[in-house]
C-alpha cells in the first residue's frame, strides 16, 4: 500500500512534461546537428557537377552510402544479415534496363518499375525471415544466385540473356547523379527517423532478445518485414540508378555477391546498428578504395583486406559503435 501513496506525485508532475518528446539517451541537439550535417553534405553534393568534370566518384560514393544504410536497416537493426542483398540491386538494375531498353520507358517510369520490382521481390523472399543466423544468410544468398540463373535462362529479348543489356536510351547522367544523392540522403533520413523513435529501440530489442521483445508486446514479425521491404526497395532503386548510369548491365555484375559483402563490410566497419556508422564506413571506404586503387594498383586488394581485418580486430563494433562503447559520454551525441 505504501507504494500507492508514492506513485501519486508522478501523476501530478506528468502534465508538466507532456510536451517533452523523449529522445532516449540522445541530447536533443545531436539530432539537429546530424540533420544539418546531412543538409551540408547534400549541398556540397548538388554543387559537385558545377565544379568537377566527372561525377562518377561522387555517384558511387552516394550509392555506397545508400546501400550501406539500407543494409543496416536490416542487418544492423534486426540482426539478420542478408548475403543475398545483391538480388535486390540486381532486380532493380534489370527492371530499369528492361523497361528502358525493350519498352522505351523514360527515366521516371524505369525507376518506378524498379521500385515495384524490389518491393515485389522483398515480398517473395519474405518467407526466408522465418530462418535465422547463417541459415538465413545462406538461403538468401542462394536465392540471389537462383534469381541470376533464371535471368540468364530467360530468352534474350526478355532479359538480355547471359550477355546482359546495353541501354541505348538517353538518361541524363547528371540527373541520375542527383537522384542518387536524393536516394542516399533519403535512406539515411529514414534510418535516422526510425532510430530516434521507439521503433528503433524495438528493432534493437528484437536483435538482442526476440522472446523478451515479443513478451512486452513488440510485433517482431511485422517490424522485421517492414525493414526487409524498406531495405530491399532502396537497394533496388540503387541498382536501377546504377544500371541506367553505367548504361550496360549483365547478370554477373548486377547480381555480384560483392555488392552484398561490400555493403555489409562498409556498414559494419562504420558500426552496424548505428545511423552514422554506415555513412562513416561508406565514405571512408569509398575514399580508401579510390586512393589505393590509384596509388597502389598491385597491392590494392591486399591493403583493402588488411584495413578490413585490422579494423575488425581493433574496433569490433565498427568505428562509431566502438566509440560509443568506450566513451559513454558520446552516447548522448552519436547514434
Amino acid at each position, binding site marked *: 500500500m505504501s507504494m500507492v501513496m508514492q506513485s501519486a506525485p508522478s501523476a501530478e508532475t506528468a502534465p508538466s512534461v507532456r510536451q517533452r518528446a523523449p529522445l532516449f539517451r540522445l541530447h536533443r541537439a545531436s539530432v539537429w546537428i546530424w540533420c544539418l550535417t546531412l543538409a551540408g553534405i547534400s549541398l556540397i553534393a548538388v554543387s559537385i557537377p558545377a565544379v568537377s568534370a566527372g561525377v562518377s566518384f561522387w555517384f558511387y560514393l552516394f550509392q555506397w552510402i545508400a546501400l550501406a544504410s539500407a543494409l543496416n536497416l536490416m542487418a544492423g537493426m534486426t540482426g539478420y*544479415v542478408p548475403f543475398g542483398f545483391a538480388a535486390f540491386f540486381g532486380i532493380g538494375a534489370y527492371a530499369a534496363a528492361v523497361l528502358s531498353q525493350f519498352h522505351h520507358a523514360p527515366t521516371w517510369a524505369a525507376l518506378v518499375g524498379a521500385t515495384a520490382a524490389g518491393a515485389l521481390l522483398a515480398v517473395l523472399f519474405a518467407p526466408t525471415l522465418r530462418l535465422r543466423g547463417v541459415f538465413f544468410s545462406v*538461403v538468401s544468398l*542462394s536465392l540471389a544466385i537462383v534469381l541470376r*540463373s533464371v535471368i540468364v535462362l530467360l530468352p534474350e529479348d526478355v532479359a538480355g540473356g547471359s550477355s546482359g543489356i546495353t541501354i541505348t536510351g538517353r538518361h541524363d547522367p547528371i540527373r541520375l547523379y542527383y537522384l542518387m544523392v536524393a536516394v542516399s540522403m533519403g535512406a539515411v533520413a529514414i534510418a535516422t527517423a526510425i532510430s530516434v523513435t521507439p521503433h528503433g529501440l524495438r528493432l534493437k530489442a528484437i536483435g538482442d532478445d526476440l522472446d523478451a521483445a515479443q513478451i512486452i508486446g513488440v510485433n517482431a514479425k511485422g517490424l522485421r518485414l517492414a525493414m526487409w521491404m524498406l531495405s530491399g526497395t532502396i537497394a533496388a532503386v540503387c541498382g536501377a540508378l546504377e544500371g541506367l548510369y553505367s548504361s550496360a548491365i549483365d547478370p554477373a555484375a548486377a547480381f555480384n555477391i560483392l555488392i552484398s559483402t561490400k555493403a555489409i563490410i562498409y556498414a559494419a566497419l562504420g558500426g552496424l546498428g548505428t545511423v552514422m556508422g554506415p555513412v562513416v564506413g561508406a565514405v571512408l571506404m569509398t575514399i580508401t578504395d579510390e586512393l589505393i586503387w590509384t596509388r597502389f594498383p598491385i597491392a590494392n*586488394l*591486399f591493403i*583493402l583486406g588488411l584495413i578490413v581485418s585490422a579494423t575488425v*580486430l581493433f574496433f569490433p563494433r565498427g568505428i562509431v559503435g566502438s566509440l560509443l562503447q568506450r566513451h559513454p559520454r558520446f552516447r548522448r551525441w552519436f547514434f
Partner: protein
Amino acid sequence: MTSLMTGAIVNAIALGILYGLLGLSLTIVYGAMRIANLAHGEMVLAGSYVAYVVTTQLGYSPLAAIPVAFILLFLLAFALFAVAGRRLQAARDPEMASFLFFYGVSLMVASGLLFLFDADARSVIFQFQPLSYRVLGLVIPKARVVAVGVAMVLVPALFLFLYRTTSGKALRAAVMNRDALRIVGVDVERLSLVAFSVSAGIAGVTGVLLALVFPAFTPFSGLDYTITGFVVIVLGGLGSPLGALLGGMIFAFSEQLTTLWIGQSAGVLAGFLILVLVVAIRPAGLIGQAEWKS
C-alpha cells in the same frame, strides 16, 4: 543406364566427397567456434596453387603436394589464429566479427595469389601411369580415382578423430555449449587454435584434390568454394559432420544430373534450389538440431 548417365554419377560421387570434405572442415570451425571462415575458399585455393607449384613447376607427383599443402596451411592458419583468435571470440558477435575479419583475409590471400601467379587460369599438369582406368566400358581418369581415394581415407580419419578422441569429442561438445566445456576444464583456447589449424590444413588438402578434378582455377575462385562450403553445411545441418558429407553428396548429385539433363546453367541453379527447398521443409538442415527458427 546410358554411359553418359554413369559418367555423371561417377563424377557426382567424386565431387560429392570433395564437397563433403570442404563442408567438413568448414563445419568443424563454424560449429564449434561460431567462426564464419569466409576465407575458407581461399585456403582451399591456396592448396590448389600448392599442387600447381609442386606438379607443374617442380614436376613432382600431385601426391607430394598433399603433405606440403597440409603443413603450409596448418602453419599459416596457426599464426593467423594465434594473432586474431582470442579477439574474435571475445567479440560481442563472434559470427559477424569473424565474417568480416576473414573477408579481409580472403582479400589478402587472393591478392597474394594474384601477385604470385597472375590472373590467368592455371591447371595442374601431371602424369599418372596409367592415365585412366576402364571400368565396365567407362573411362575414369586416374586423377579422379586418386582424389576420391585420398578423400576416402581422410573422411573416416576425421570421423575417428571427431567421435573417438577426447579432443574430437570436446570439439563436438563445443558445438552445443562452450562455457560448460570451460567449466569441466577443457582448454578451449588451445582446442580452438588446433581445430582451426587442422581445418585449414584439410582445406589445403581439399584444394589439392579439387585441382585434380577441376581443370582450372584463378586467384578469384575462392569465393565459389566458400559459398559451396556454406551451402553444403547448411543443407546437411550446421555443426553436423555427417550432415556435411550428406550435403556435399546431394549438392554434387543435383549439380551433375541437372547439367546432364538440362544444361550447364541449370546445373548451377539446381543445387541452390535444392538447398532452398530442403530448408523450407526441414529448416534445421537434413540432420541438424541447431536452433534455426526465429
